[in-house]
């Protein structure tokens, strides 16, 4: 139980609160935004995990790859929704 474990627990708790927005978010954009935030928290969580298990040289590579994939996924979804406006549900109550 070192200090990295406590920090990783806090990151996990913060990420867990974001799932409320993913489930409830009135439209697809709120869900995408919260998913991107979860991915960004996962980068920090991966780096902290490397320091917990005292093998940061492996987990830092994983975190770098995850950062690239998270960005590509968000950009692809945003470009698809921009070119296909029919996929967006405009009947939800709050924007």
């Amino acid at each position, binding site marked *: 139980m070192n200090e990295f474990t406590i920090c990783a627990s806090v*990151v996990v708790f913060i990420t867990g609160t974001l799932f409320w927005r993913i489930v409830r978010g009135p439209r697809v954009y*709120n869900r995408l935004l919260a998913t991107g935030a979860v991915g960004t928290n996962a980068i*920090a969580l991966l780096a902290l995990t490397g320091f917990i298990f005292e093998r*940061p040289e492996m987990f830092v590579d994983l975190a770098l790859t995850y950062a690239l994939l998270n960005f590509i996924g968000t950009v692809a979804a945003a470009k698809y929704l921009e070119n296909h406006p029919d996929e967006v549900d405009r009947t939800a109550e709050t924007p």
Partner: protein
Amino acid sequence: MNIAGLIVMCVGLFFLGVSSVGLFRLPGFFARVHAVSKSETLGIALVLGGLMIHGGVSLVSLKLALIVVFVAIANPVAAHLLTRAAVRTGILPVSRSSAFAFRSNAPPANPNDTARGK
């Protein structure tokens, strides 16, 4: 060195928590983008900066710095693309009257946006 890294990491966790609270509480998509795109970037930069201070000068710290640089570029770009797609597909901002209508019987001024979530 250890204590300094821990303090920087705790400040980064504070900013990650601020972005989470903003995503949870703010009304409307654009206010949420405003909360996430800045505090999230600063929070992860401070968390990884604390790890860099803890690890000292090594290849791991160089890779952590690369992650910080990449996230500082990519996170605002992703938020900008999401916001541009939202604007071009007709998502409207929450107006002032509906954003501050805490009473449930206050009628919404604009039919496109109603009072914030119950």
